[in-house]
């Protein structure tokens, strides 16, 4: 595996670490009771605490703490019995308190790791440094008024889990796979809705480049990316930018960058020109957060099967490849759908690979075309199971099955219904097929001559003609065998 990218002069390696901000799926904010609902009118979900009114004090949301612990368990990480909320002090229009309550020295979750799986069957561990709880800021809108910035505090105080990785990532693809994996784990755990468009999951990307074997270079941080596509684009652009500077003899300035989604370019943030000094210190309005071993055990016992466990289970039970199993488990809805499908008929277990293919290629492409996802698929797992059963028992051919699926998708009928109504059962009767073959041979004497003269490729032509006459229902295997025999005669 070669992860190097070519500059003008040298080969370079990217060194990438991600800080993912995942919004806790809670009803109310981390330190106040206002709602976290998305898309409400401006400043309609802002408590006195969120607006930093004089004398207002934070009170922590128990559920958010539990979700952070749960997520920590899902990241194979150490849960800290003792953690501390600190204030991170800086001024910004959408930061009403003048500080963000975060966790600095003592985060709620310590070191962990997640595994990403490649197509070639290999996999790689990305180490997690920590997960901590913190408040989100409000939102500044710079383009609503020619001379003013508008501030909406609806997001102010919403609970975030910041998940920080080690700089173990080496390519944009790995970065994409890593964030997909984190997203998958969060959604299995139900601790975050994973909605990147709405900003429930976003990432800061730290990136530097180096010649292979060198020390880490100076890194830049690209802020607040909310799609995997943008993450990859931003990394590619930023790596190239850094390489160009280095190859022309320059040096990288440690900088906070913004990514412009329309130009695909990164540029340094203008208003953060000065060095930061966040003056972290323990928030005196809050006491240390203590979690007992019993609480951790209780939370652990509530955790559902996670993608990696499920993946290994699928590999073991259904003999799937590592990659197939990881595709199947990447999203909970996919693995749920697979489970329901394969359990709809005891016979189907033998055809697990076929089930995977029908879900991940045929059904997915239909869903895609129609802008739907598995949760609102018109084809239920039971119906898909029935279709696959028809294929596996040779009642219909794979080719016809594709048409049947399309029909099921649009009409909502079952496979059985469609097959019966349209008489699509495969023809396996030898005599019937022989009759058709005879007809084809009789109608194409010249072709037969050419075939017999050695033009083997023409076999396909005869199969096609025969299929046409049977409306695709002839069993391809039997048809083939009989055809070869007859032609030789």
């Amino acid at each position: 595996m070669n992860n190097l990218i070519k500059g003008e002069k040298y080969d370079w390696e990217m060194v990438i670490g991600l800080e993912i901000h995942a919004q806790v799926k809670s009803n109310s904010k981390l330190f106040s009771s206002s709602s976290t609902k998305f898309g409400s009118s401006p400043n309609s979900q802002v408590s006195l605490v969120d607006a930093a009114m004089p004398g207002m004090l934070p009170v922590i949301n128990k559920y958010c703490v539990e979700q952070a612990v749960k997520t920590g368990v899902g990241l194979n990480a150490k849960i800290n019995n003792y953690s501390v909320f600190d204030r991170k002090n800086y001024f910004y229009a959408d930061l009403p308190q003048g500080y963000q309550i975060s966790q600095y020295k003592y985060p709620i979750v310590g070191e962990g790791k997640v595994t990403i799986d490649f197509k070639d069957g290999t996999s790689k561990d990305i180490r997690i440094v920590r997960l901590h709880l913190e408040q989100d800021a409000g939102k500044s809108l710079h383009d609503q008024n020619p001379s003013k910035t508008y501030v909406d505090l609806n997001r102010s105080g919403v609970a975030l889990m910041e998940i920080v990785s080690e700089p173990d990532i080496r390519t944009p693809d790995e970065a994409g796979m890593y964030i997909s994996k984190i997203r998958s784990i969060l959604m299995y755990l139900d601790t975050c809705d994973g909605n990147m468009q709405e900003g429930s999951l976003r990432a800061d990307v730290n990136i530097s480049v180096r010649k292979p074997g060198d020390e880490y270079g100076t890194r830049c941080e690209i802020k607040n990316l909310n799609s995997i596509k943008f993450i990859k684009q931003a990394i590619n652009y930023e790596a190239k930018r850094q390489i160009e500077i280095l190859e022309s003899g320059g040096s990288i300035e440690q900088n906070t960058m913004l990514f412009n989604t329309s130009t695909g370019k990164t540029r340094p943030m203008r208003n953060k020109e000065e060095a930061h000094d966040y003056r972290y210190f323990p928030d005196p309005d809050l006491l240390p957060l203590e979690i007992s071993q019993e609480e951790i055990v209780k939370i652990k016992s509530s955790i559902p099967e996670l993608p990696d466990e499920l993946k290994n289970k699928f590999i073991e039970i259904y003999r799937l490849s590592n990659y197939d199993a990881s595709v199947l488990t990447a999203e909970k809805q996919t693995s749920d759908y697979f489970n329901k499908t394969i359990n709809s008929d005891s016979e189907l277990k033998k055809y697990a690979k076929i089930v995977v293919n029908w879900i991940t290629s045929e059904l997915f492409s239909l869903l895609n075309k129609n802008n739907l996802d598995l949760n609102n698929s018109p084809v239920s797992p039971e119906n898909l199971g029935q279709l696959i059963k028809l294929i596996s028992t040779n009642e219909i051919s794979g080719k016809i099955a594709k048409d049947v699926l399309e029909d099921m998708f649009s009409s909502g009928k079952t496979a059985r219904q469609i097959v019966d109504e349209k008489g699509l059962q495969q023809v396996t009767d030898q005599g019937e097929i022989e009759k058709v073959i005879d007809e084809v041979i009789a109608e194409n004497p010249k072709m037969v001559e050419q075939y017999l003269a050695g033009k083997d490729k023409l076999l396909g032509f005869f199969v096609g003609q025969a299929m046409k006459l049977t409306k695709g229902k002839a069993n391809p295997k039997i048809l083939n065998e009989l055809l070869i025999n007859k032609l030789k005669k």
Partner: protein
Amino acid sequence: MKIDKNTINKIARLSRIKLDDKESEDYIKDLNSILDWVEQLNEVNTENVEPLSNISSSILPKREDVSNDTNSSEEILENAPDNLEGFFAVPKVVE
């Protein structure tokens, strides 16, 4: 002298307080004398002493995850020096 012109400018900037030259000079004097005075703490041996952040010995109380669904915007904007279209308004920021 711990606090010089540079330092006072840096702290004033972090604190978002504009100081004129006269004030800077006064604060340099004040802060230096205060810092000299507090440095008597260096006489105290604090090896193996746990820092005390809050005197309370109780456990951090936690809230249930219940949201109130009242529309806050009127109350929240009531005291704002400048608000427009339901937003707080501040001078334009160029990011």
